[in-house]
């Protein structure tokens, strides 16, 4: 079950556990602005192929714009 986290935990996971950051918004919104180091996999394209670029042995953090 995915775990909800806050910004402090995001930073800890990035630094201590080499977590992978994924923005799931459309490409234009990602290009406007994104968290440093994040890659873009829009929700509509999220499948085994598009996530193939990620390391399955490392944690994954997903985010979008806000709570919506």
């Amino acid at each position: 079950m995915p775990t909800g986290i806050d910004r402090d935990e995001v930073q800890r996971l990035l630094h201590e556990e080499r977590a992978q950051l994924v923005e799931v918004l459309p490409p234009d919104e990602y290009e406007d602005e994104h968290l440093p180091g994040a890659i873009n996999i829009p929700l509509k394209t999220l499948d085994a192929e598009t996530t193939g670029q990620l390391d399955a042995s490392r944690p994954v953090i997903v985010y979008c714009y806000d709570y919506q």
Partner: protein
Amino acid sequence: MSPRAAWRFESIGFSPVYDYVAGKADWGSFGLPLEGHRPSSTRVGAHARTDVPACGPHDRMPEVRERVRAAGWDTCFVTNEEGVVLGRLGRAALAGADDVLVEEAMTPGPSTVRPSFELDKAVERMRAQDLTTLPVTRSDGVLIGVIRREDAEQQALESSATA
């Protein structure tokens, strides 16, 4: 959207999967860096005046009026011990002479925007609601500063002239 994505990642086989539910709006509101093409000058955070006066709900109005006038402002935001915006003292409240507590004179729950809010939308909102200022807060409600309509309109004009 991100909860669905998190579940999707798990169904594909990733573990552990975390969901930063507050997202990049929260990240930016705490002044953490963002990358991308959109310049920060188009956001209210780049133009927020952080010297806007603030006071507590239990301060007395005569002292607050004097302090706000001396600072050259005509508005003051009421915050709690954590800096969370509780209310606002506008021109009418500051022009009065009543010796009451701030919480009795303030307008509670003013509309706020995050630093990542677009400047031209802030101008639209201030015009539509006939506001001269708009408080800028972090996602947890802590006051960062205020965007003044005249500043925002001037900046929007300059941006359109250079576009």
